């Protein structure tokens, strides 16, 4: 399944939001749902679940709460628990938009393709949409039912002629059937609709290379390698393209880079598979996070560490890792929140005071930085790093 994900680069985590609140919802419950949603979006999964528990005490049959719980459990890779939540949603409101869709997507993650097809069809009966049709086509394609897949993608295009994913996936089917020209036509349509999509650029480059057009494929691969330096596949194919146009030295350079990246990719896939199979195993998520971080895949690494943190919520190391990744990702506000959260549990952690000060400095808040480093020195008066940092503020 991961192969297909990477091949087509279609995001599988596009879940419907819990935004179908009834007009007569209890304001207290609505407030809790808002808090839970915020916690969920910021990666505080345990908090999100706890808040939904509180909401259910007030309103035990609030359908939006169960839907949100389904989404949280999905992010935590507890797919069975997610299914229970979505089933509850449907028992309370059989017409709830997105419940069947999310169950379908979870079924694809579990490689249960017939179930995925049934779920997407149920969703389509209620809410026909191009996005669901594309997902249905994808499940059919993975099951080897090519005609049905093509039919679903064509339906998606009829429903929404601007659905880029439908064009890309239809192009993929044509490629597999040996009609590269047609595949390139559809990929061009998809890319025109979503010109910044790096996954689509990679697909276009690969089709051109397959079509014997290495020179034309170069800018597509180069766009991917420059934006995703961890992208093994683009490096490999860029190397192939360069070799074929006679630029052997550069080609070899990218092939060598690809070879190095391949090890990391394999490591990530191994840990990801293991973690998804054993979602309660803390170390699997930590290893996955570390592997992703080593490859420079910051957002994905953060997601893995957030799951780990939900298993071990008192882990300062994990919280610190996440804060550091937030910082690397440019999210200083989240980084500060997470450093402060650690310090509220143990204010003697000098390294955290140090990191907090660094974030403040990088945000131009010198006084806050000074205060953080001074606090750190209270616990470790001889810390030369903190002293040196403080000197830089003078």
């Amino acid at each position, binding site marked *: 399944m991961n*192969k297909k994900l990477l091949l087509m680069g279609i995001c599988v985590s596009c879940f419907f939001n819990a935004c179908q609140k009834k007009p007569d919802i209890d304001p207290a419950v609505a407030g809790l749902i808002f808090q839970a949603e915020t916690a969920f979006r910021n990666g505080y999964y345990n908090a999100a679940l706890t808040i939904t528990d509180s909401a259910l005490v007030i309103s035990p049959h609030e359908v939006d709460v169960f839907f949100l719980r389904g989404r949280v459990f999905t992010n935590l890779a507890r797919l069975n628990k997610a299914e229970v939540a979505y089933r509850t949603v449907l028992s309370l409101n059989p017409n709830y938009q997105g419940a069947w869709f999310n169950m379908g997507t979870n079924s694809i993650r579990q490689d249960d393709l017939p179930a995925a097809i049934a779920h997407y069809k149920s969703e389509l009966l209620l809410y026909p949409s191009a996005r669901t049709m594309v997902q249905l086509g994808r499940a059919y394609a993975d*099951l080897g039912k090519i005609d049905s897949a093509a039919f679903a993608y064509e339906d998606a295009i009829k429903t929404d002629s601007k659905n880029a994913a439908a064009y890309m996936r239809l192009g993929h089917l044509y*490629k597999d*059937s*040996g009609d590269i020209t047609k595949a390139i036509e559809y990929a061009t349509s998809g890319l025109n609709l979503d010109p910044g999509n790096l996954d689509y650029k990679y697909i276009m480059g690969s089709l051109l290379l*397959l079509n014997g057009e290495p020179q034309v494929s170069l800018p597509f691969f180069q766009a991917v390698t420059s934006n995703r330096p961890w992208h093994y596949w683009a490096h490999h*194919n860029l190397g*192939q393209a360069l070799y074929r146009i006679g630029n052997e030295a550069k080609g070899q350079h990218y092939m060598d880079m690809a070879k190095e990246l391949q090890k990391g990719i394999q490591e990530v896939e191994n840990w990801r598979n293991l973690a998804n199979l054993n979602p309660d195993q803390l170390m699997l998520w930590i290893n996955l996070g570390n592997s992703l971080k080593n490859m420079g895949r910051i957002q994905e690494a953060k997601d893995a560490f957030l799951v780990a943190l939900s298993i071990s919520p008192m882990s300062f190391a994990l919280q610190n890792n996440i804060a550091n990744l937030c910082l690397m990702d440019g999210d200083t506000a989240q980084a500060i929140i997470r450093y402060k959260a650690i310090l509220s549990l143990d204010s003697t952690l000098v390294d955290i005071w140090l990191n907090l000060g660094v974030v403040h400095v990088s945000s131009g808040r010198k006084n806050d930085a000074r205060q953080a480093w001074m606090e750190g020195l209270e616990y470790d008066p001889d810390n030369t790093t903190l002293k040196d940092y403080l000197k830089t503020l003078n």
Partner: protein
Amino acid sequence: MSLFPAGKITVFFVVILFITCDSKQPASTNEIQINFTNVTATAGLANFRHVTGAVGDKWFPESMGSGGGFIDYNGDGWSDILLVGGGTWPGKSVAVAPALFLYHNNQDGTFKNVTAAAGLDDLHTYGFGITVADYDNDDDQDFFFTTIWQNHLFRNDKGTFTNVSLGSGLEKDSFWSTTAIFFDADQDGWVDLYVGSYVDWSPENDIWCTLDGNTKNYCTPELYDGVPSRFYRNNGDGTFSDKTEQAGFLPSPGKMLGAAELDFNNDGWPDLAVASDTQRDLLYVNNGDGTFKEIGAVSGMAYDENGRARAGMGIDAGVVDKSGKETIFVGNFSKEMIGVFRHQSGNFFEDRAAISKIGRPSLMTLTFGLFLFDAELDGDLDLFTANGHVQIGIEDTQDGIYYREPSHLFLNDGDGHFTDIVPSISGPLDRPIVGRGAAYADYDKNGTLDILVTENGGPVHLFRNENNENNFLRVNVRPSSGNRNGLSTKLVGITKNKRMERRVKTGSSFMSHSETTVTFGLGSEEVLDSLYVYWPNNSMEMFHNIHSGKEINITEGQGKLAVQ
């Protein structure tokens, strides 16, 4: 397109021969019916059972299966059958399975078990593959047998075999070996040996794997370290020397399951394509002196279109279209297409899996045995694959994937576009089996190529090719000096409408051995207009106007054809 390979060519003879024969009336292409009959029982092979030795431990080698193939052990010109019996684990099973089974061709469509009479009944091991060649140049067919422990070299002494492993130089290593291939890498006239190695597995380091999280199942090779394959130079005195490193075969990732000899750059030196399981496939280009350089990744044949290593199993190579370029075919795991890579130019190959129309129909099957042959004798190489999964009960956990799978028979339209005809014909190829090894030969000497398929933990199948409408010409070659089987000889047959390029070779497929006789399918043509023979020493001979319906022998430098 040149008919001549690069390099120096010496033309010895140009002979025009007319061989009369009673060719059958031609049939139009539209009327040709492909049909195979399962003749296993009537041929006397029904009692054979491959043994996995499984007693519930789910040890990795039990899922691998083994090969078999054709050998003319008594030199009577009829293909006999040699099968690998599998094996049992010491201390685990009361019954000990024989390692090898040899069946004598009675020349009437039946076979007789002559394992004991041929001296092959006293070997007990856990076996996998065979490769056949006359390694000592004494005009008979010897064979090499791979196992999970020590491998074995059997010398043919006028129809009986002697295990000459000890002292041969081939007995020292004790790795899990898979497919082996004889070929004359340095063209010194003595066939060398490449022995594929798989992974570092033993009962002591066996890993617990599962499909459902509860019960143990067979592991896949990602969990074990690969063991590099080995290359042995034939010393010409009955012994071999390990020249793996000197010949350029190190480093290598191991996990090798298939090897095919080819000459993609047409320089007259044999190259080697290797299929690796969950590792990149390899392409060894001959440096022109019997040493090699590995260029798989750069060439574009090592990975799928996204640079991902697949589970390479069986492999073969041949010219399948009008480009005249060699194409490599690699059998892969379920949800991985069969790899199809056609030589483009220089050291580059192009991915033709989709364009050839083989990719999609092969996507859901797990292919082990795989070979090119002219199934309907129309002059084009077609592709047969033996399929079967490694996980018993896979259908319970993965939709659309089955433990027992039908075979594929991809018919070539003459320009490298294929159609799998198995779904549209009823017959033995459509019957789901746990396919592993696969080989071909014209065992009944009617000119058509018959198929032998082994199953893991099951019977062997002999499928007789019932297509007898088209004309054919079968050719055996014998160099004046050097390797007696004429390995690496290239033959090009020309008719009014076709150019057919074939190579004499061992290896290919999965742990199995096909006949080395070359078959030209002539369709409705009654005469092969020209036959060019490119000998391993780069000399070339031409023959013209050869009538069909015969098997002929060509000895290098004699300038004439002998009808068998």
